[in-house]
């Protein structure tokens, strides 16, 4: 899986998290290539990386809890394996099937100064909890004049296509949540990213929705430091340098886009690839700087094109870089249909669709 190879190096230094108990937005340790060997790295797939992050989170803060449907058995994707055995059923527990209740409960738990790590079994099931997230979690701090907040709340949910998931196990609902000031939305692209970003989300003083690319749970494997490390939120990463066109994406789509970049390179097109990682509040500067350099922008996501988060990126970049753009901003996204069962390959923003769009944008 090429997603595994996406992460190369992130500057910085190692640090210890032992003393780090308070909420913080700044990572206390940042990965460095050389140091990784000393600290121990292990080849892990994405669900194991998530599992490791949850172990770390529970271990480093006694006031953290993991709960959701079937999590004490390890969850349907095995992300919570072993947690209940190690930390006990008072800190890792199953809930009934009641998404609205799960998130409302999590908000209350977090309001008492705890880290509530809630799992929604599939992102498709998050909608019963939509009200709690949008009206309760996101606005708690604002409407109480900062007396209360649920900053310790992190909602994990597997999102996206899986090849044959059909209508209710494949959706990418991130754009709905990106319309809600007060919460953060974060999506990792690989195991190493997943661990570092999840730990940042858990320790971030704001409620966060963390969508995990379920297609990559087993497929994506890369070297993941065993140590406690965090990756910064709201910082996009240029994972591939290029000069002709900027590609922006997140999550599982990154590996598809990387393949398209490689194919485009064979035809002499140099693509710059950016992983947005945090969707709100997003890193406009990194994307802006790149587009000013390349003069072209392509955004790709699995969610339907209309009203997708690509539209927001497109609009913002047009505002900032209008005079530098050499072609219309291109969006290669899911179709404006319900996520289909039998037509998934037609629906998906595949490598060839992206490659076509790269070519027609560059040739505009």
């Amino acid at each position, binding site marked *: 899986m090429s997603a595994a190879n996406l992460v190369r190096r992130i500057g910085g230094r190692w640090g210890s998290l032992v003393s780090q108990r308070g909420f913080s937005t700044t990572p206390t340790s940042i990965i460095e290539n050389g140091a990784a060997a000393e600290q121990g790295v292990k080849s892990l797939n994405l669900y194991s990386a998530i599992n490791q992050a949850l172990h770390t989170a529970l271990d480093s803060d006694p006031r953290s809890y993991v709960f959701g449907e*079937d999590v004490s058995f390890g969850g349907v994707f095995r992300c919570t394996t072993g947690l209940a055995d190690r930390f006990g059923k008072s800190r890792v527990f199953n809930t009934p*099937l009641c998404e609205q209740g799960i998130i409302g409960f999590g908000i209350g738990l977090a309001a008492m100064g705890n880290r509530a790590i809630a799992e929604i079994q599939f992102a498709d099931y998050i909608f019963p909890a939509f009200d709690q997230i949008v009206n309760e979690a996101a606005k708690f701090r604002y409407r109480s004049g900062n007396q209360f907040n649920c900053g310790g709340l992190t909602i994990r949910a597997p999102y996206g296509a899986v090849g044959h998931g059909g209508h209710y196990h494949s959706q990418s609902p991130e754009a709905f949540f990106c319309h809600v000031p007060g919460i953060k939305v974060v999506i990792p692209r690989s195991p190493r990213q997943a661990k570092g970003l999840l730990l940042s989300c858990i320790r971030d003083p704001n409620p966060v929705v963390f969508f995990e690319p379920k297609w990559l749970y087993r497929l994506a494997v890369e070297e993941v430091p065993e140590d406690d490390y965090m990756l910064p939120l709201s910082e996009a990463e240029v994972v591939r340098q290029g000069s002709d066109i900027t590609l922006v994406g997140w999550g599982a789509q990154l590996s598809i886009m990387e393949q398209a970049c490689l194919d485009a390179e064979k035809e002499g097109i140099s693509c710059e690839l950016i992983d947005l990682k945090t969707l709100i509040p997003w890193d406009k500067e990194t994307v802006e700087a790149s587009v000013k350099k390349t003069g072209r922008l392509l955004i790709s996501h699995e969610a339907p094109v209309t009203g997708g988060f690509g539209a927001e990126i497109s609009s913002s970049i047009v505002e900032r870089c209008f005079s530098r753009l050499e072609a219309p901003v291109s969006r290669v996204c899911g179709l404006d249909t319900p996520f289909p069962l039998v037509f998934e390959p037609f629906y998906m923003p595949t490598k060839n669709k992206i490659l076509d769009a790269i070519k027609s944008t560059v040739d505009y």
Partner: protein
Amino acid sequence: MALSRIASSSSSSVLKPISAALTLRRPLSSDTTLTIETSIPFTAHNCDAPSRSVETSPSELLTFYRDMAVMRRMEIAADSLYKSKLIRGFCHLYDGQEAVAIGMEAATNKKDCIITAYRDHCTFLGRGGSLLQVFAELMGRKDGCSKGKGGSMHFYKKDAGFYGGHGIVGAQVPLGCGLAFAQKYSKDENVTFALYGDGAANQGQLFEALNISALWDLPAILVCENNHYGMGTAEWRAAKSPAYYKRGDYVPGLKVDGMDVLAVKQACKFAKEHALKNGPLILEMDTYRYHGHSMSDPGSTYRTRDEISGVRQERDPIERVKKLLVAHDIATEKELKDTEKEVRKEVDEAIAKAKESPVPQPSDLFTNVYVKGYGVEAFGADRKEVRATLP
């Protein structure tokens, strides 16, 4: 715990004839009235339980046997089709719970509405759907009941009042209230059966649905198919009160042995009469699924194999009817074996036919999103090329 209690109380005495009609010698004429006692008494909440004596006939019992055997065979076949990757997506099997679908059909007509969750293959078949429609839908083919666009979780049959096949836990129950309101408004003396599982019983929507259906006296029957596991979580881990028939508080309820097709029939008949006169009622069907929650769940991590085989031996709904048929000399073991063979053949033929059914046209991807289409721009930068104009 509840399981073992029921298992031990289903003694063989119920298999003995209790009505005078049964003193007749074989062969019984197919329309002879038989009166058979249910496995265990009903447990009622805020209402008087119906009688344990259920009227049936040899022909009805034979039909029950055959229909349940078809369902069982169909689900087993779906299991292997899934494993050979001919069925994709998520697939939830109903084997073990057949008596609920069959008993409910025996007490209702096709103007009554049924709405259920995603474990819907057998409910669809009970409403008169064909095996071909089932397998074609499962494999995403054109001849499927939802034209291949729905898959396992989304079976519908409008002409028989089957409102499907819903993917989100508990979401179908309030819809059932809407159906019941429409029935009441048009004074057509029909009711809606809204089915959900013990897992869904803990969803807030269920209580919203209960309140509105009671407030407006809707002819809605909320049927909790309690198979004792909400996905991988045993009922007692998820529900403070696993007495789901009492969960309605002010709404009466009835607990039914959902493995006894005659008890289900009696309860549904009672519920329909009650709902038309007095408004909503909860039926808790105590049942069991042999398969795991879905195809990705082996179904053996959160329960013991002994528990599963115990239910198979003591409470299996098909075995129960089989014993009745034999005890009353309605059919011999051999005749029933022959029926099973026929059923197997029928299922195999349906699968073969379904395999020949074509997959839908790619353009069907864009139909049924709205009544009429709107120009779909499929590819961003390819906007010059790709534009689908819809019917």
